[in-house]
C-alpha cells in the first residue's frame, strides 16, 4: 500500500494554493483568512475586556465604603448590567471561541481555512457593530436591570432596553454563524485519515461548542426578539395582566444562557487537554473519555437551564429533575478533571507559562465547579441565589476557568499566530499577579455570600452593621481586583514587547505533536503546502509523529537570523 501511487497524488496539479491577498484592507481589515480573523477577534475582545473591566473596577471603588457614595445607585446598576453583558457576549465568546477556535481548529484538522471564509469575516464584523449599538445606549440611558434583563423591570427603562436587545441579537447571529461554520469545517474538512477518534481534543471541544452555538444561540435571539417586541410594541408575552408570564422569559433566556457558559468553558477544556500532555511530555489520559465528555456536557447542558430559576417560582416537581440533571453534569466534568490529573501524574513537567495557567485551571475551575454543585441543590440555591456566593461561584468558573484557560491557550499558541515567543519572565509574573488577584477578589465573596451579603447592591450599609468584617473583606477584594488589572496590563506589555523583539519561535517551540505545529510560524496563508495524511492520534509521545507527507506540508524553516530576515509580525497589523 503505497501512498505515493494514490490518485490524489496524481491530481496534484489541481491542488493549487491561492495567492495571499495584497493590500492592507484585504489583508488585515476585511480579511477572509481564519488566522487574521482570529487576531481581529483577539484584539477586539481585549479592548472590550478593558471597557468591561473598568466597569468592574468602578463597582469595586463604589463598594470601598459600605455607604457607597462614589456614584449614583442608578449608575451602579448600569455598571453591573454592562459589565455582565460585555464580558459574556463581547469578551468571552469572541476571545475563547472566536479567537482560539479560529486560529487553532482549522490548523489542527489540516484544513486550508474554515468551510465558509466569507461567513467567518461576517461573523467577526458583527461583533464591533454589536459593540457600537451596545455602547450607544449610554447616550439614551443604558439598561440597568442586570445582564439577564428580566421583565417586568426591563420593560420600564426607555430606549436603552430595545437597543440592548438589538446588540445581543447581532452577537447571537455572529455566534450562530460561527457555530455553523465550525461544524461544517470539522465534519467535512478534516485531513485524510483524521477519523473522529484521531481528532485533537481542542477540535473535539470546538465541535461540542459549535453544537451549542448553533442551536442554543438562536433561542436567545428568539427570547430577545420577544423582549424587543414587548418593549417597543407592548406585545403581552411577558405581561401577566394580559395573560403573559414573566417566567416565560426566564425559560427562554436561560435555555440559551446556561449552555452559553459551556460555550466558553468547553474550548477552555480543549485548551487544557492540549497544553497538559505537551508540557508533561506524556500521552493524554483517557482520550475518548475526554472527547465524549465534551459532547455529554454540551448535550446535558441543554436540559439544566431551569436551575437558574428556582427562586423565580417554577413548579416543585420541575425543580427536582433539573437539580438531578445539573448534578449529572458533574460526572463528565469530573471525568475530565481526573483525566487531566492522571495525565500530569508521572510526567516530566516543564513549568512554562501556559503550563502554569493550565495547572492553576484545574484547581480554580474545580473550585468553581464544586460550588456550582452546591448551588444546584434546591434548598441551598433558594438560600444563596441572591447573594455574593453566586457571584463568587460564577466568577471562579469564568475568570478562574475560562479566562485562565484562555491565557494558557494564548501563551501556548501566540508563537503560531505571530512567529515570536512571549516573554516567559513577564508571563510568569503576570500569572502570579493574576492568580493573587483572582483569589483575593473572589474567594472572600464566598463567605460574604454565606453571611448573606446581597449581590447587585450599590450600598451594603445595613449588612455591614450586622457583619462588621464585611467592610474589611470588601476593601480587600477591591485592592485585589487591581492586581488582575495589573496582570492584564502586563499581558498587553508582553504582546507589544514580544512582537517586536521576542525570541523567534520556529515551527514547533514546545515540541508538541498536533498538526498546527508541523508548519512554519506564523502559518502561511495557505496553511499546508500539501495536506498531510493522518495515521493516528497525536498524543503518544513514545511514537514517531503519526503523519505522512510531513516534509512536504511546509517550507523548510529558514535559519533564524535577525540581520537577514525581514521583521515578520505577520497578521498582527501593528
Amino acid at each position: 500500500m503505497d501512498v505515493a501511487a494514490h490518485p490524489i497524488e496524481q491530481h496534484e496539479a489541481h491542488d493549487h494554493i491561492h495567492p495571499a491577498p495584497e493590500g492592507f484592507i484585504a489583508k488585515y481589515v476585511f480579511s477572509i483568512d481564519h488566522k487574521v480573523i482570529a487576531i481581529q477577534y483577539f484584539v477586539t475582545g481585549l479592548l472590550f475586556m478593558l471597557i468591561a473591566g473598568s466597569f468592574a473596577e468602578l463597582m469595586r471603588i463604589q463598594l470601598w465604603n459600605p455607604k457607597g457614595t462614589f456614584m449614583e445607585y442608578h449608575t451602579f446598576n448600569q455598571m453591573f448590567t454592562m459589565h455582565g453583558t460585555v464580558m459574556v457576549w463581547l469578551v468571552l465568546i469572541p476571545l475563547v471561541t472566536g479567537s482560539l477556535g479560529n486560529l487553532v481548529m482549522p490548523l489542527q484538522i489540516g484544513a486550508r481555512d474554515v468551510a465558509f471564509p466569507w461567513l467567518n469575516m461576517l461573523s467577526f464584523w458583527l461583533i464591533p457593530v454589536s459593540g457600537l449599538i451596545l455602547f450607544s445606549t449610554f447616550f439614551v440611558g443604558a439598561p440597568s436591570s442586570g445582564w439577564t434583563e428580566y421583565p417586568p423591570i426591563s420593560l420600564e427603562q426607555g430606549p436603552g432596553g430595545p437597543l440592548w436587545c438589538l446588540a445581543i441579537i447581532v452577537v447571537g447571529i455572529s455566534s450562530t454563524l460561527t457555530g455553523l461554520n465550525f461544524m461544517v469545517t470539522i465534519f467535512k474538512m478534516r485531513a485524510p485519515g483524521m477519523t473522529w477518534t484521531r481528532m485533537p481534543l481542542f477540535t473535539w471541544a470546538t465541535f461540542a461548542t459549535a453544537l451549542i452555538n448553533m442551536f442554543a444561540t438562536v433561542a436567545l435571539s428568539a427570547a430577545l426578539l420577544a423582549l424587543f417586541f414587548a418593549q417597543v410594541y407592548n406585545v403581552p408575552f411577558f405581561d401577566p395582566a394580559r395573560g403573559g408570564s414573566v417566567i416565560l422569559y426566564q425559560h427562554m433566556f436561560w435555555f440559551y444562557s446556561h449552555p452559553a457558559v459551556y460555550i466558553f468553558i468547553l474550548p477552555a477544556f480543549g485548551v487544557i487537554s492540549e497544553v497538559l500532555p505537551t508540557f508533561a511530555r506524556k500521552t493524554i489520559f483517557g482520550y475518548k473519555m475526554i472527547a465524549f465528555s465534551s459532547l455529554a456536557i454540551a448535550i446535558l447542558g441543554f436540559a439544566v437551564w431551569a436551575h437558574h430559576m428556582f427562586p423565580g417560582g417554577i413548579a416543585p416537581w420541575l425543580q427536582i429533575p433539573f437539580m438531578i440533571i445539573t448534578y449529572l453534569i458533574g460526572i463528565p466534568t469530573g471525568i475530565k478533571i481526573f483525566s487531566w490529573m492522571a495525565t500530569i501524574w508521572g510526567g516530566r513537567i516543564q513549568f512554562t507559562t501556559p503550563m502554569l495557567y493550565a495547572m492553576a485551571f484545574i484547581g480554580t475551575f474545580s473550585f468553581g465547579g464544586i460550588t456550582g454543585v452546591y448551588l444546584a441543590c434546591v434548598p441551598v440555591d433558594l438560600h444563596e441565589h441572591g447573594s455574593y456566593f453566586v457571584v463568587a461561584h460564577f466568577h471562579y468558573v469564568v475568570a478562574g476557568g475560562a479566562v485562565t484557560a484562555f491565557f494558557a491557550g494564548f501563551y501556548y499558541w501566540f508563537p503560531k499566530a505571530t512567529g515570536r515567543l512571549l516573554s516567559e519572565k513577564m508571563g510568569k509574573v503576570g500569572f502570579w499577579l493574576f492568580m493573587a488577584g483572582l483569589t483575593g477578589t473572589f474567594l472572600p465573596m464566598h463567605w460574604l455570600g454565606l453571611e448573606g451579603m446581597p449581590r447587585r447592591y450599590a450600598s451594603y450599609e445595613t449588612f455591614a452593621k450586622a457583619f462588621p468584617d464585611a467592610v474589611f473583606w470588601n476593601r480587600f477584594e477591591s485592592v485585589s481586583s487591581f492586581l488582575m488589572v495589573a496582570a492584564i496590563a502586563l499581558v498587553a506589555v508582553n504582546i507589544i514587547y514580544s512582537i517586536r523583539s521576542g525570541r523567534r519561535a520556529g515551527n514547533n517551540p514546545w515540541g508538541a505533536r498536533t498538526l498546527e505545529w508541523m508548519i512554519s510560524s506564523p502559518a502561511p496563508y495557505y496553511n499546508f503546502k500539501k495536506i498531510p495524511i493522518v495515521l493516528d492520534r497525536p498524543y503518544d509521545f513514545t511514537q514517531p509523529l503519526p503523519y505522512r507527507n510531513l516534509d512536504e506540508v511546509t517550507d523548510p524553516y529558514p535559519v533564524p537570523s535577525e540581520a537577514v530576515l525581514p521583521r515578520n509580525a505577520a497578521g498582527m497589523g501593528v
Partner: protein
Amino acid sequence: MAVRSVARTTPYLEKVAVEARYNDVDPVYAETRDIRLFGFVLFLLADCVLFGAFVFAYLYLRTAAPTWPPVVDGKQLPRLDVAFGAMNSIVLFGSGVTMHFALESWKHLKKLAFNFWLVATILLGIGFLAGQAHEYMSAQMTWQGSTFGASFFTLTGLHGFHVFAGVCFLTVLGIQANRGVYTGSKYFGLVAGTLYWHFVDVIWVLLFFLFYLW
C-alpha cells in the same frame, strides 16, 4: 499499524479524487458542493430553533391560560377561520409541488418548463402572502390585546417574513439560472432554494395545526 491506517483512509481518498475529476475542482476540496449543502441544512435546522422557541412560548402561554381562546374584556376571542386558512395552506403546499417540478425540469435540462414552474411557484408564494395579509386585516384580535394575538401575529409574521425572503430568493435564482450561472451538473443554488421553500412549507404545517386546527 501504519499500513492498516492507510488502508482505512483509502476509500475516502478515492471518493474525493473521483468526485474531483467529475466536478473538475481542487481534489482536496472536492466536497465543495457537499460542504455548502451541509451548511445550508444546518442553517435551516438553526432556523427551526427560532420557530421552536416561539412555539414553546405559545404552548407555555396556552397551557397556562384558563380558557383558550383567551377572554379579552369579558368576551372570549373567536377561533380563526379554518376554511380560509386551509385554502391558503393549499396555495402554499401547491407552491411546494411546483417548486419540485421546477428543480426536476432543470435536472432534465428542460429550461422552458423550469421557468414555467418557477414563475408558478413565485406567484403562488405571493398569493399566499396576499392571503395572509387578508387574514391579518380581517382578524378580530390584535398583536397587543392577548397572548393568542401575540403568538399568532409573531409566529405567522416570522413565517410570512420567511415566505417573503423565499420569494426574493427564488426570483434571484430565476434570474441567475437564465443568465447561465447554473449548468446541468452544477446547480447547488437551485437545490438550496428548493430546500428552503420546502422548509417554509413544513413550518406552515406545524403553524396551521397549532393555530387553526388545535
